[in-house]
Structure formats: C-alpha cells, structure tokens
C-alpha cells in the first residue's frame, strides 16, 4: 500500500471514529458497530485496525478513555471525545470534503 493511500484511509477511519462518538462515549465494539451503522454497512472495521486507531487518537489527546460498564453490565473501556477531539472533527471534515471533492472532480473529469 502506498503511504499516501494509507494516510488517506487512516484519516478516514479517524474521522469515522470521531464522528461515531459525537453523541456519547462508547467502547470498542460499540464504536465498530456504530461506524458500520452510520456508513450503511460499507465500513466493517476490524479490531486489528480499530484499536491502533483508537490508541493513536488517545495518544494525540483527541479521545479520552476510562473503564465503565457496558449495557449488559460488562466491564469495558469507554472512549469519549475530548474538547480537542471535538474541535478536530471540523478540520477533519473540511479535509475530507476537500479530498472527496477532488476525487469526485477527477472521476467526472476523466469519465
């Protein structure tokens, strides 16, 4: 995978994770399912890419994590947006819009 494409996908995943947490904190599985839901099943995020992304975002300070109880009373680690993360969403969305507009334009122009 070329590194530019990897960055693009990484950025997309980051955006999706941040978006999925706008309403409420959630744990890993919840986030994966929420992403699946909001992308209408297009993105099925596997733990192998989800967890590194979560930890990367936490490392950047956009997410905060704490242990809590899941809906069926299981211990799980919950992630929530920090203030920096919330701010970040806007710029990420702007980035994404620029990229997707460019790609759209490229597709229209070449077809």
């Amino acid at each position, binding site marked *: 995978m070329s590194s530019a494409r990897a960055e693009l996908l990484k950025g997309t995943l980051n955006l999706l994770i941040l978006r999925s947490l706008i309403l409420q904190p959630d744990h890993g599985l919840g986030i994966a399912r929420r992403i699946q839901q909001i992308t209408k099943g297009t993105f099925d995020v596997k733990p*192998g890419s989800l967890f590194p992304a979560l930890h990367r975002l936490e490392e950047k300070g956009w997410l905060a994590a704490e242990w809590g109880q899941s809906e069926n009373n299981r*211990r799980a680690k919950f992630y929530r947006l920090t203030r920096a993360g919330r701010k970040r969403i806007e710029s990420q969305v702007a980035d994404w819009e620029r990229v997707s507009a460019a790609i759209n334009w490229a597709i229209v122009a070449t077809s």
Partner: protein
Amino acid sequence: MMTISRLLRNIFFKDCIDRDLVEELQSYLDLLIEHKIAAGMSEQEARRAARLELGGIDQVRESIRDVHAGIGLQQVWQDLRYGAKVLCRSPGFSITAILVLTLAIGANTAVFSVIEGVLLRPLPYSAPDRLCLLWKSIPQRNIEWDWTSALTIRDWREQTEVFEDLAMILRPEGSKVTMRDDSGTEKLQGSIVSGNFFDLLGARPLLGRTFSRDEARRGENVAVLSYGFWQRRFGASNSVLGKTIPLDGRSALIIGVMPPSFEFPDKKAELWLLLTADPRWPTFQMQQFRIADAFCAVGRLKPGKPVEQARAEMKAISARLAQQHPATDTGLGVRVIPLFDQIAGPQVRSALWILGAAVLCVLLIACSNIASLLVARSAARRRELAVRAALGAGRRRLIQQLATESILLLLAGGIGGVVLAYGGLHSLLTLAPADLPRSNGIGINGIVLGFSFGLCLLTGLIFGLLPALQITRIEAQSGLHDRGRSSSPGPGVRRLRGALVATQYALAIVLLTGAGLLIRSFLLLNAVERGFDGSFRGNAPNQNIVVECRPFAQDPTLHARNIVSEGYFRLLGIRLREGRLFSDEDVAGKPAVAVINEKMAHHFWPSDSALGKRFKQVLPGMDEGGWTQ
C-alpha cells in the same frame, strides 16, 4: 501532540498499560461473543467466530503498542537489554569484535589527535595566517633559506609596505644562556628577540606581561619564561613574577610566563630575552656585521595582503639593497614563507596524512572483518529472526534490533579505543620524530572525541547496517519456509560474504602500500635538511687578511670568512684538526678568536703550527687582532 506526562506514563507504567490493553481486548472479545450469541450462534460457534474476527490478541497488541508515545525509547531499552544478552551468550565473538574495534578506533583517535594538534589547530597567535618568516636566500648557490643580519632586517622593516611590522629573532645557537645560582649552573635555550616580538605575534602571556616598549628601548634585562621552564624550574609558582634570575652574569627580571602552546621559534625555547639588552647588540648593529648570519625575521602582513605580494616586494627591496650595499648584499634574495608552512612543512603534512589514511584503512579492515563475522553469525540466527518476523516484528524493527547489537559492540569498542588512545598517545609521541612541531598541545580534546564519535557512527553504519539490511531482506524472503535445521546460507549471504572478503583484500593491499609510503616519508621526515647546505661556504665577500709577521697577502681563495656562534661546528658536525673550538669563555672583551681551515693554516704557516698565531682583517672600524687556534 504527545504530552510529556503521557510519554513518561508510557515509559514508566509500561506494564500497567500492557495489562490494560490485554484487558481491553479481552473485554472486546467477550462483548463480541455475547453479541454473536445474541444474534443466534451457539456459544462455541460464537467464541470461534469472535476469535477469528479479532485475529489474535498478540498481533493486535503488537500493533497497538507501536502507536504509543515513547515506544521508540522503550524499544531501544528493550533492544539494548536483549542485545547485551545476545552478546554475552557468544563471548568469543563479542570479545573479538570489541578488541578489533578498540584497536582500530584507538589507533584512529590517537593519530587524529596528532593531526588535529599539528595540522588542523590554528597557531596560537592572533590572525596566524598573516604571519610569515623572512630569511635570506642566496639563489645562485641554491641556498633557499639562511639567517641574515640585524641591519638587513632593519632595512627590510624600513622599506616594506606589505608588512605591518617585522620582529627579529636571533638564531638559537646564539641564544643560549647560562643560569648560575645556588643550585648550580644550567644551560638554557633562550630566544633573543626584538621588543615587538610578542605584540607582533599577538601572543598573550599566561602570567604577567610581555616586553614593554620602554623596556625594549632602554634595553632592560627582562625575561619571559616558557611554560615548560616555569613548571620545571619554578614549580609553576605564581610568585615567580618580579624575581630575578642570574643569566650569563647579569640578572634578568622575570616579567611573564607564556602558555604551553606558545613555542616560538620552536619548542626548545625556554625563555625569551630582549635583543636590545644583549651585550652583543651594539656589535650586531655595526656595518661590518651586515655579513653575519645571525637573525631571521617574523613579519605580520597587512590585512588582505597575500604572501605573493610580500615576495614580490621583498624581491624589489633586496635588489635595492644590493645596489646600496654591493659589497655585502649582491646576489642575495629574501625568502618569505608563511609561518604555518615553516612549522608544518610538506614533509610533516604528507607523513601525517598518510599515517591518518593508514589507520583509516585499518579501521575499514576492522569494519569489514566484523561485518563478515556478523554475517557468518547470522546463519545461526536465521531461525530466531524468522520467528520474530512471524510474530509480527517488522523489518524495521529487526534492523533496529541488529543495529542495536552493533551499537553495543561499538560503544564498548569506542570507549576502549579512546582509553587506548589516551594511554597510547604518549608512546606514539615518543615514537614521533623529536622535532615534530607543536607536539606539546596534542591531547584528547573535544574535537578529537567528536571525531571518534563520528568515526564510531560511520563504523556502525558500515559494519552494522549493511549486514542487517542484507540479512533481514533474506529472512523476509525465506522466512520460516526453511524449517529444517539446515542453515546453509542463501546466495545473498554468500554474495555479501564474498564482497566483504574482497573488500578486506583490497583494503589490506591499500594499507600495505600506504605503510610502505609511510615509512618512506617518515624516513624523509627524519632526514629533513639540517639547516645547512653541503656546499655551504658562507657569503662573505672578499676581505683582506693581514697576518702578523707576514707581508700583506691577497689570495682570493682564502677570503671566505664567516662569523658564527659557538655551536656552529658542533651543529654542522665538522671535526677539528688541532686546537680547540669556540667556547663560553670567548666573549666580548676577551681576545677575539678564530678557527681557520687547513688550507689557510698551510698557506700562511706551512712549516709551523698555526695555533696561537695572530692575524687581522682589514675592515673599516675593526682593528682587533685575533689569535688562531
């Protein structure tokens, strides 16, 4: 945006974080299983599907760990510990490698410290590149440099436009002084210089001051000591200033001490005295002394004036002087040589650079040696590397690990090398030619340490990284496929090994050639011209000699005459036929003495011993008789 606290947490609570991670993944797995059961799977099925989906907790853990801040540091620490363990497990290899590195880096450090001290470090004077030495030359007789007279230098100084100033230095043979005190007598190598000497060089004393203008004008008996002499004779005591030392029956007031790096005209000089205070100074200024070979000059070029311009100007000046003083200055030239070139001439330079190249060759051979050892060892480590690669260690991580082991070896070798150089430098300097300039200042300093450090990095790159790249590439290809115990190296390893052996051969040949060159140039260095030419006959013009009880004789073959100082004959290794040489007792006020050659003795006193006979020279203003020996 990695905060420091996060970094510290990652480093110091690494185990906590790791446990947390495992727990998190476990809870994810449990939730997933529950979710699948809720979707209608049997528990067993759900468990299997969930595990499959997670794809192995360990792999996920590895990939998460890599995103943590400070993971680099953690890995370095981990690699260091692991590397140390690996090296301890094969002490034979490790000790060999470290010893080879110690020797190579030690040799390089030691030789570089000499090169740095002699060639790279600027001379300890202000704007040293503007300093030149000026000598007399006699082009017709191929005498490139020779001493000249005080009067000549005075004329140079008056006429030059290119030099800011010129200072005079009496030749070392004439600058010896005897110090007599309660503890006995000691012969000292002084340096008798004009009053502007220190100011011209821009050399500051370590202690006290240098000659003042008034002292120079009045010709006061003041002395500036060299660092070595001050240490040896006065125990580096600060109270030495203001003391007097008895020199040649006069007492000289100590006014300053120079730093150890100050060695001028060479490192033998133990103290500096004012020329104007010297009892011979009036004689030196006499017109008939214009023929004497007693002084050289050190000059400071005006800023921006090149040496070539000084040479051209001095040529014009000497031509002018030859017209003014046809009897003494005909056929004389001036040699202007940058001070640095005089101190570290081409012989010294090429010898040191060749020595440097030779030890660098040794280092490269050591590198290729260790590299091939590493490659050979890698055969035994293929399985280990393959297993680690299969467990999720990336190629970068493996290279990092191998590089860490190399760095550990280097660290040990580098430290050993510097210690070796520190200890060995002294013996290296005793091996060096005695007249190696500026050897006092040679030592392991920051620059040398920096050089060694750079050398270590370079070495590590060569012997550590190349094999690591090669090996990991091979591992990535063959991986675990090679399940058998056969550890026969693949074609890549064989190629690399072949290349390393070839490199070693090539370097060894270069080294051998270099060593040959080195020996040759060291021999040359030791045989550097001793300051006189085989055909040297002095430059005195014809003078008439009147021999006592003889009619006036005029014979051009006999008229070459030389005024020399007492060390002259010893210096040139000329042996005496009869009588004695000049001694300390032959000073101003005593009867003048002369040593004549066999031809003169035979000519004037064919039947008789010439010892004790008297003659005199017909020279204006000089009428004292001398007795020959």
